[in-house]
């Protein structure tokens, strides 16, 4: 069946071009020696130099990383606890459906609505406790909120693929509840926990709209910075920044693919 269909190949390549045109354009202009305008003026790396000297950008980058790391750790722990606690317990099917509904909210609800709802929540909570003033805390809390669901779903699917045989075997072999959890359950769901954590991390790095609604002036993330720059007036440093972000996204994917290929 492997005919060479030129039309199909053409459209396929066009699709790829469409997906990569933005990235390529940004990369090209990041090395263009021109401040304004889009005419080609020569190759230069100075925008990258300026990039690494820009305090605001470095700040935003640090914020983004701290945000992603802290929220991933928190959400992975909470999400795993949620998955294990919920799906290994005898709740009635009605309750299960309710739990599923709450857990699936971030998957179903458009992120702008989630952003708004979180902003509303923080507004209300601010009256109770001032830690909820807009800032890193609200950012982290808002990210953890949607990350929990994704981690839970990934760990849940891993849990469900395990049979009950090994649990009964462990008990038959004198395991206490703690021993069984530590030596059987946890190791077996570890791949799910790691996958969930990685998913949470990338979702946090990639997020714009939720951060946009729930950040403070001191807690700007890279996507927010880029957006503000677009509104304010784009400088070539932004192109350099975007290119760096693109490359940093691509590298883990390639590494991950290399790793999984070994198996």
């Amino acid at each position, binding site marked *: 069946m492997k005919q060479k269909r030129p039309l199909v190949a053409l459209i396929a390549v066009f699709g790829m071009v469409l997906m990569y045109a933005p990235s390529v354009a940004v990369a090209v202009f990041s090395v263009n020696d021109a401040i304004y305008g889009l005419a080609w003026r020569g190759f230069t790396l100075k925008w990258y130099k300026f990039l690494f000297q820009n305090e605001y950008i470095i700040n935003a980058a640090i914020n983004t990383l701290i945000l992603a790391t802290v929220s991933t750790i928190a959400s992975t722990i909470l999400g795993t606890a949620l998955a294990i606690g919920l799906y290994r317990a005898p709740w009635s099917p009605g309750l299960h459906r309710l739990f599923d509904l709450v857990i699936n909210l971030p998957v179903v609800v458009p992120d702008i609505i989630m952003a708004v709802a979180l902003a509303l929540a923080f507004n209300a909570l601010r009256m109770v406790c001032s830690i909820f003033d807009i800032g890193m805390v609200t950012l982290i809390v808002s990210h953890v909120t949607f990350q929990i669901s994704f981690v839970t779903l990934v760990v849940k699917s891993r849990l469900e693929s395990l049979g009950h*045989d090994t649990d009964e075997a462990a008990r*038959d072999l*004198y*395991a206490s509840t703690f021993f069984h959890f530590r030596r059987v359950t946890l190791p077996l769901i570890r791949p799910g926990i790691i996958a969930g954590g990685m998913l949470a991390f990338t979702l946090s790095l990639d997020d714009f709209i939720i951060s946009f609604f729930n950040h403070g002036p001191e807690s700007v993330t890279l996507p927010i910075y880029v957006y503000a720059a677009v509104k304010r007036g784009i400088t070539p440093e932004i192109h350099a920044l975007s290119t760096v972000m693109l490359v940093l996204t691509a590298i883990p994917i390639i590494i991950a693919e290399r790793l999984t290929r070994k198996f």
Partner: protein
Amino acid sequence: MTDQINVALLCSGISKTFGNHRALIDVDLSVRKGEVLTILGPSGCGKTTLLRIIAGLELADAGQVFLNDEDITRYPASRRPINTVFQSYALFPHLDVFSNVAFGLQAKKTAKSKITQKVGDILSLVRMDGLEKRFPHQLSGGQKQRVALARALVNEPKLLLLDEPMSALDAHLRTKVQDELRALQKELGTTFVLVTHDQNEAKRLSNHLAVMNEGQIIQFGTTEKVFTKPDNKFVAEFLGATNLFEASRDGALYRTRYGPMDVTDKPVWDEGKILIWPERIEIHEKAKTGEPNWFSCYVRDRVFNGDGLDLLLVKDAGNDSLEKPILVKARNSFDIQSGQEVGVYFPPDYLVPLENRAQN
């Protein structure tokens, strides 16, 4: 009453219901130390449920379980000195062979040096030494079974439970593995309780047999007794006896469709069913006319079964006869052809009347 001192396992009045389905109805069972008991029955008869109740993986609705006179009914599985070999072996996929086998010892906080020694010993016994670092997905079916056995036996349990141990193995391996299992049990002296639906397995492995159907034990006794003298039609047919026929008393003999028969083990009833095993039927060139237990038959079919001939005999040679043929396993190298007429002798000693017990 059975010899109480020697009883390893005693189940008394076990009942279990799942929703609408009564899986076990007032079941009693006893197993002596060092014995191999097989619980035989079709799927859904409750044998696996009974096994799981003994293991502690299910809770009976009523009844008690005693192990060496200790009431373990309310003990969790992790407290019972009983180990199970699961049908799927349930090996821990993330642990290698050594860690799998050592699991129970580690759970009981045994000293490391002791663990190494015990695991090494048991692996040698099941001939898996050298394979300690392998993981379950790298093992063959037979190897997995041996690891599952080792994992259970290393804990020196008072009772070993096996759930359909041969079902996951290739057919040609089964006999060999059955013999190995038998040898292992003899060497260790552990009490075994097996559950299976394969009557050949029951024959080779066990010295006691309990036949179950629909939640109840239909017959219990030594393997030899149950096989040679099945109580009723269900047990007989489940054990592979196909030669059942009706008989009614006629003076000192019994009238059957094959002619008058003399039966050594006189039935208590006047009308009922009689069974004879295929291996016990004698084939001769000609029937001794007029004598009881002798009659003529036509050979409808003959099949070489590896050991000898399987013959299907019918009285009525017609092609469209609906008569149920007699199955004979003939070991003599007779030159018997299809369609041939032969003389058949049912030795009175081997005629087994079914339901031959006074109603109580």
